[in-house]
Structures are given as structure tokens and as C-alpha cells.
């Protein structure tokens, strides 16, 4: 009994620690004062109005989303092809490729960031859209490879051969037989890439064009320059992102849980 109470208490304390800042921000996104003051609360939708009329922040939101989608799409194509190639290659080729794939995964982000700064400044392409997209692809692609490879290993190798025997061309066999079987791995690689790209600050800061900002770089710079308190609309932006992400994650998981249950009861 004591053990149970202690367990629940510990879980509750940690959950409060995790969600208190988020809750504070969501609640005070409905308060129009510049700096959060817990002794008073003036309910209003002012910050949301300011947010949607702030063309700068809207542009940044747009930048962040297209960058994530572009980087994730390119990484998913490159990484899926890479994983299939690695899976069917000889050990002599597959092993080193897998080892090098681990470098960006293990490496500190700041080291990845400066290595790209050195490379792109050598060819005078530093701080361009190219360096930015490549930077995000370096972060994301290995994760796509690492989430597709296990699915390839689980696949029945005979299905590809069977498709060829039945007259499919290699590319037909690939798209109609292999890809569908590893699709869950590709999808999780893509989702992981989107979240990695949305979450990134350091690589973005080192590779982005000067006038380009994502949510991460904009907010960090606002705090650094002390201008964050003059744009309280950022509170509304954070609140919206928190709520959308929490809802999305819960929805996906509740649905996945339901599917699993259905499968189990069958």
C-alpha cells in the first residue's frame, strides 16, 4: 500500500514538473499583459489576435513547416533507397555505410553544424538554402535508414524473388512488393524526420541564410536580444504548438492502441 502511494506520488510530481511550464504558458496566453504576472489575470484573446496579425511570425511559422516537410521528404527518399541498397549489398559495403550512418546520430549537434559551416564556406555556399536543407538532411537521413533497415530484415526474402518469377520487373517488384512491406518503417522515419527538423536549433542557426528564421532561431534570438517581452504573442504561438502536438501524439497513440487491441481480440 505504502509502495503504491509512493509510486503514484512520484509519477504525479514528475508530471507536474513536466507540464507546469506548459500549463502556465497556455493559461497566460489568454492574458494580455506583456510579462506573466501570476497575481492577476485579465482574460482576453488579444495575444491570439496579435499573433495572427503579426506577418513576421506567420512567415516564420511557414518557413519552419516547409523546411521540415522538404527536409523530411528528401531524407525519406534518400534514406529509404539507402537502406534498401545497404540491405542487399555485401557486408564489405554495408558495414562501413552503417557505421558512417551512426556519426550524425552520435555526434554532438554543434560539431555537425560547424563541420557543415566549414564545408559550405569553402565552396562559397555558406548560409544558403542549400546548406540549410543539407544540414537538416544530415540530421534526419540516418534516422530514416535506421528505422527502415529493421523492417527489411523482418521481410520474407522470398516474396521479391516470387514477384520476379511471376514476371515482374525489378523496379515493379521493388515498388509493389518490397516498399509496401517496409512502409511502416518508412512512415516512422518520415515522422521522426519531421519532428527532428521542427525541433532543431543548432544546425539551423549555423546553416540558415541570414534573413531566414525558424521558430527556434527566432525565439532564441528574441530572448538573447531581450525583445521577447515586447512580443507576448509568442506565448499564444507556443500555446497553440503545445496543444496541437499533445493532441496529435495522444490521438495517434490512442488509435494505435485501439488497433493493437482489435488485432489481439481477433
Amino acid at each position, binding site marked *: 500500500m505504502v509502495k503504491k502511494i509512493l509510486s503514484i506520488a*512520484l*509519477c504525479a510530481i*514528475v*508530471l507536474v*514538473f513536466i507540464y*507546469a*511550464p*506548459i500549463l*502556465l*504558458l497556455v493559461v497566460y496566453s489568454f492574458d494580455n499583459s506583456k510579462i*506573466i504576472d*501570476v497575481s492577476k489575470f485579465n482574460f482576453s484573446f488579444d495575444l491570439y489576435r496579435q499573433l495572427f496579425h503579426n506577418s513576421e511570425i506567420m512567415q516564420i511559422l511557414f518557413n519552419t513547416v516547409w523546411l521540415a516537410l522538404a527536409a523530411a521528404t528528401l531524407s525519406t527518399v*534518400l534514406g529509404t*533507397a*539507402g537502406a*534498401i*541498397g545497404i540491405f542487399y549489398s555485401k557486408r564489405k*559495403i554495408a558495414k562501413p*555505410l552503417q557505421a*558512417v*550512418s551512426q556519426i*550524425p*546520430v*552520435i*555526434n*554532438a*549537434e*554543434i560539431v555537425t553544424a*560547424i563541420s*557543415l*559551416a*566549414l*564545408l559550405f564556406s569553402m565552396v562559397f555556399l555558406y548560409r544558403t538554402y542549400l546548406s540549410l536543407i*543539407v544540414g537538416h538532411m544530415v540530421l534526419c537521413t540516418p*534516422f530514416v*535508414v535506421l*528505422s527502415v533497415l529493421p523492417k527489411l530484415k523482418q521481410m520474407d526474402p522470398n516474396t521479391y524473388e516470387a514477384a520476379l518469377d511471376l514476371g515482374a520487373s525489378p*523496379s515493379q517488384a*521493388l515498388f509493389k512488393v518490397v516498399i509496401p512491406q517496409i512502409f511502416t518503417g518508412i*512512415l*516512422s*522515419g518520415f515522422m*521522426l524526420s519531421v519532428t*527532428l527538423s521542427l*525541433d532543431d*536549433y*543548432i544546425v539551423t542557426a549555423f546553416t540558415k541564410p541570414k534573413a531566414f528564421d525558424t*521558430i*527556434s532561431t527566432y*525565439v*532564441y534570438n528574441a530572448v538573447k536580444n531581450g525583445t521577447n517581452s515586447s512580443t507576448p504573442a509568442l506565448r499564444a*504561438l*507556443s500555446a497553440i*504548438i*503545445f496543444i496541437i*502536438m*499533445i493532441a496529435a*501524439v495522444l490521438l495517434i*497513440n490512442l488509435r494505435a*492502441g485501439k488497433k493493437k487491441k482489435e488485432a489481439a481480440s481477433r
Partner: protein
Amino acid sequence: MIKVHFSRKQLCIPYALFLALFVVFPMLMILFYAFTDTVDGSITFTFANFINFFTSTAKLSTLLMSFTVAIISTAICLLIGYPIAYILARSKLRRRNVLLMLFIMPMWINFVLRINALRDLLDVINLLGTQNYLNTIIGMVYDFLPFMILPLYTTLEKLDNSYLEAASDLGGNKFTVFSKVTLPLSMPGVISGITMVFMPSMTNYVVSDTLGNFNITILGKLINEYFTTYDNWHMGSMISIILLVIIFLTLLATGGLKDSKTEARGANLW
């Protein structure tokens, strides 16, 4: 029409070129920059950056500060994360997956926004600006705790109950069962969690800047400063090499982390 002869193996060529050009070559460039210097426009080979790092008290104290922050943050994450993962993995709740999700969900929300939310909270309770060191550690724990909980949960959940039953049937009390069976079997999760928290805590300067009010310098920030503020890319590269050696030594000491990092990033949860 030309018939392209296509083989599955060749699909790895674009990826191999990508890795060579954007991962391997840039890393070699860091090595080159670290052991050279630009004097009057010409590049010369030198050990000066290396010697400079280990003779500069400011840089060595940054190294020490980074270690302290990282060790304390990792220890706190482990002390909080292990019991949480244990409780979740051992619970008989039907909905424990949703409960787990509540603990690790933050890893999918932009960390700059989360850290700023924490900054606002610390400001409300009057800690911001007065306790830079403490706030930085709180921030690292806040940011990286999910990355500790997830791998621990994954290993603890797979743990075969019959081992624990056998141990207690053979006369082990609760403490011996835990220390002789549960803990050793969960070591892969512990190691994976430590590597997920330790290295970012030494380098993620967004956390230390936002919560330490730009007064705490950790290794990541020092590298950033040499690239942006001081414009000395050679010294910045040398510090990166030293950081890489530290990462390599931690991996060596803990036995590496293999493929677990994708799992720890929650790949299989989507």
C-alpha cells in the same frame, strides 16, 4: 529507349555519396582546421590550438563546468527516470502506454519553446537570474528526462518475470532481487539513457543560455563563440575535436549504443 540496368544494391550509391560529401569530408575538415592556423592568408600546420586549450584556465574551467553540469544532470535524470520507468513497466494498468506517452511526449515538442516556457515559470518563482547554475541543470533535466525514461522503459518492459520469480523463490529478498537481477538486466537501458543525456547536457547551449541568463558557458557555447563571436574557426575546430574525443571515450567506457538511439528517439512509437 535505353534500357537502364538496375540493381537493388545500386540504390545505396546516392546515400553513400551523400555521407561521403556531407558527413565524412566535413569531419576531416574539422581535423584539418584544428591542426592549422591562418597567418597572413597562408595556412600553416600547428599544435598551437591544442596547447592553447590545455594551458588556458578559462577553457579548462569551461570543460570542468560542462562536465559538472552534464554529470549532475545525467545523475538526476537517472535517479528520477529509473523509478518512473520501473513503475510504468511493472504496472498492470491497461492504459500504461498512454501513461508512458505523457512522460515522453515532450521530446516531440520544439525544445526552444519548452525551455522558454520553463524560463517563464522560473521567472514567476523568482529563480531566473539569481540561480543560473541551478536553472541550467533544471533545464537539462527538463529537456532530456524523456530520453532517459524511454530506453529504460523499453528494457524493463522486456524483462522476463520468471527471472524475478525464480530469484525470490530461491530466497532472495526484494533488495537482492533488484540489485542482482533487475538492475544488471536493465543495464543496456541505463547505458543508452546515459549516452542520450550526458552528451547533449555538455553541449546544448540553448538551454544554458535561456535559463542561465547567458552567464553559463558550456563546451557547445564555447565552440559557437569561436565560430561566431571571435571568428577563430581553427580554435573552434580544436575544441570540437576535444569534444569528439570525449564522446568517443564515453562510448568506449559504456560499450557503445548501437541502434538503440532510434528507439530512444521514439521511432517505434509513431
